[in-house]
């Protein structure tokens, strides 16, 4: 606020009605205060803002009484203003008048003197910012209407995402650069239940919040397009407090009600101009807190998509039919955009489904090829193994027979070597035959812990003989995997057997099953003394080395079996520096027939 020059009073003739009319058209309120601070003259706009039409409620029209309600501060500084030492200026004052109308006002008090001999007076100029702003962009102006529709249409056409489209509709309806409603509520149509369901709302939930939001938006000076862009990129879905007001509000469209009628006919209703309201609509307006609501159905190609309800709850401004008509045009555009978004979503889902099916088909083809390959390999190895079995029996049998005869020590030693190597070869043949036989069985869900426990039990005798202790720690939960039970059992058994016979010196190891994310794990951990760790790791590497050429046939078959089941096998060292072997397999749900995805390499 700044003091003006006391010597130069504005030379306006307050009796000149042309000036009053001109300021009326600008939407400004004018009032005149005499030397004692009484309002002696005011125009209609000032009457609306200052609620001077409720004059009867007051004893008189003294500025101090007006200020008790509006708290503009003019009454306190009236003396300075009337004396010409101050021009009173107050901007963006949030207040509520005695009619309960919330406003953001600008108020100016200027000292004046109508003539040489006239007494001192103050001219008050007051404007409601929201109205001033709206009237500057009056939607009844055809050019302005086209601009709003064009900008909203451009924003709607830029998105296929339903949430964003809904946000654009609500922003376009509530932004002061758009249709300028205080609050807009969106209800979506549930075709199956024939009901409207509250979905999202935008707008301030109280006068205070309105003041804050509108001041902030005003200071940002965004165009409607910029505002729509900004709101599109914002997360969230409307104004939380307002959305929660209608979240559980359902409107049955079965009966006869104004809402039902608007939805069925596709025609908007300005409830402000309806005299009798049915019970369903009454419940609706009671929830929203005001009967002055515009109801606008959203219809695309004869299909009801939803309903927009808009009001001026905060400013209490009347809703013009022109504004509702414009909202209807916007709602129709939005309905088309919503239908397009739904079609787009449906198409996208179909495309994703097709992609998934193609992927599954490719996987199935790959699996069939693998199974065929495994089947051929199984048959081949089976045939080879059987062909080998007879000569091995003959060679080994005659070697054993010969060992019973009189031999030199050297001959006996050589025959013993032949006999033991034949036995080892027969053992390999047994493994191969077990595997080829297993490959013929069908896949099914298997519980890993149970499978491990059964196989470890088979090894107990051998472990006792070698004075090796293998403790067992099983996962509490069921670890379901999918696969060929015989193949997996064979792989686990061979791993445990190799470890028990060739790796662990008399000592201990722990066999553990556990869940790791979406994998079922079998861990074989070796408790070796510090000086034995290197030796154990070396032994493990020799047997389970990555280099296939150096791996034993048994390990190769077991590892390939695990890989075939989408699993992994490896050697690692834990945080406690103890080495461990692990087998990981994809987990499935107990009632699931196959894992979601198996990478069968």
């Amino acid at each position: 606020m700044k003091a003006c020059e006391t010597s130069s009073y504005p030379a306006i003739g307050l009796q000149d009605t042309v000036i009053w009319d001109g300021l009326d058209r600008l939407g400004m309120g004018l009032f005149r205060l005499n030397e004692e601070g009484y309002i002696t003259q005011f125009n209609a706009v000032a009457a609306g803002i200052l609620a001077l039409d409720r004059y009867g409620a007051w004893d008189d029209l003294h500025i101090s009484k007006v200020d008790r309600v509006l708290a503009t501060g003019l009454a306190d500084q009236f003396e300075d203003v009337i004396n010409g030492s101050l021009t009173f200026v107050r901007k963006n004052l949030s207040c509520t008048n005695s009619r309960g109308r919330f406003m953001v006002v600008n108020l100016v008090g200027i000292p004046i003197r109508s003539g040489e001999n006239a007494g001192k007076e103050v001219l008050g100029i007051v404007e409601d910012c929201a109205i001033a702003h709206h009237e500057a962009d009056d939607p009844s102006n055809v050019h302005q209407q086209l601009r709003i529709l064009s900008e909203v249409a451009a924003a709607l056409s830029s998105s296929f995402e339903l949430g964003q489209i809904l946000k654009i509709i609500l922003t376009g309806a509530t932004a002061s650069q758009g249709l300028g409603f205080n609050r807009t509520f969106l209800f979506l149509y549930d075709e199956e239940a024939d009901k409207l369901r509250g979905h999202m709302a935008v707008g301030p939930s109280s006068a205070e919040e309105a003041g804050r939001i509108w001041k902030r938006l005003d200071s940002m000076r965004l165009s409607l397009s910029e505002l729509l862009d900004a709101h599109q990129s914002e997360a969230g879905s409307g104004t939380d407090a307002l959305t929660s007001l209608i979240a559980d509000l359902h409107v049955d469209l079965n009966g006869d009600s104004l809402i039902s009628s608007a939805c069925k006919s596709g025609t908007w209703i300005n409830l402000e101009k309806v005299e009798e309201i049915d019970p369903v609509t009454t419940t609706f307006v009671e929830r929203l807190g005001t009967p002055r609501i515009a109801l606008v159905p959203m219809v695309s190609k004869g299909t009801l998509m939803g309903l927009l309800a808009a009001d001026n709850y905060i400013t209490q401004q009347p809703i013009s039919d022109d504004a509702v008509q414009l909202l209807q045009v916007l709602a129709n555009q939005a309905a088309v955009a919503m239908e397009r978004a739904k079609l787009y979503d449906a198409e996208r889902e179909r495309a994703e489904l097709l992609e998934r099916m193609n992927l599954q088909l490719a996987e199935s083809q790959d699996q069939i090829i693998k199974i065929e390959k495994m089947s051929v390999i199984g048959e081949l190895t089976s045939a080879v193994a059987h062909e080998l079995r007879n000569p091995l029996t003959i060679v080994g049998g005659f070697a054993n027979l010969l060992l019973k005869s009189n031999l030199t020590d050297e001959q006996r030693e050589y025959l013993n070597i032949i006999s033991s190597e034949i036995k080892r070869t027969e053992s390999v043949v047994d493994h191969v035959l077990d595997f080829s036989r297993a490959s013929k069985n069908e896949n099914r869900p298997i519980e890993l812990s149970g499978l491990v426990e059964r196989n470890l039990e088979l090894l107990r005798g051998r472990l006792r003989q070698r004075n090796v202790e293998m403790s067992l720690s099983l996962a509490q939960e069921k670890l379901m995997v999918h696969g060929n039970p015989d193949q997996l059992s064979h792989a686990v058994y061979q791993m445990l057997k190799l470890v028990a016979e060739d790796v662990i010196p008399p000592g201990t190891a722990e066999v553990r099953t556990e869940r790791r994310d979406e994998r079922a794990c079998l861990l074989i951990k070796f408790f070796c003394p510090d000086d034995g760790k290197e030796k154990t790791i070396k032994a493990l590497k020799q047997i389970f080395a990555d280099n296939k050429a150096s791996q034993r046939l048994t390990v190769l078959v077991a590892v390939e079996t695990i890989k075939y089941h989408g699993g992994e096998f490896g050697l690692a060292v834990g945080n406690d520096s103890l080495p461990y072997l692990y087998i990981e397999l994809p987990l499935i749900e107990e009632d699931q027939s196959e894992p979601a995805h198996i990478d069968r390499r």
Partner: protein
Amino acid sequence: MSQRILIVDDEEMIRLLYRKELSQGGYEVDTASSGAEAIKKVSQGNFGVVVLDIELPDMSGLEVLQKLREIAPETSIILNSAYTTYKSDFQSWLADDYIVKSSDLQALKHKIKQLVVAR
């Protein structure tokens, strides 16, 4: 109590090996290289135990097993094969035992001894 053993196998060396090994155990051993020959020998002679291969050139050992059960129900029969798969074939259950071929003949000799004593 007959200690006559018939070895039925198309592999000559297997027949030779078994003959040598079982002869050393005190058994009288005869051999047949086909199913037909085995049926003929069993119908003519009195064998305590038949050691029968399954993969034979003229017919399946399982067919031979059925025929032998008809003509000589008292004779014990051990199926002896390089294949393990026939164990799950119900026809093989007619045999007194099923022993997979191995260079270690202990299991076979032990079974023969059991069956001979049992007779």
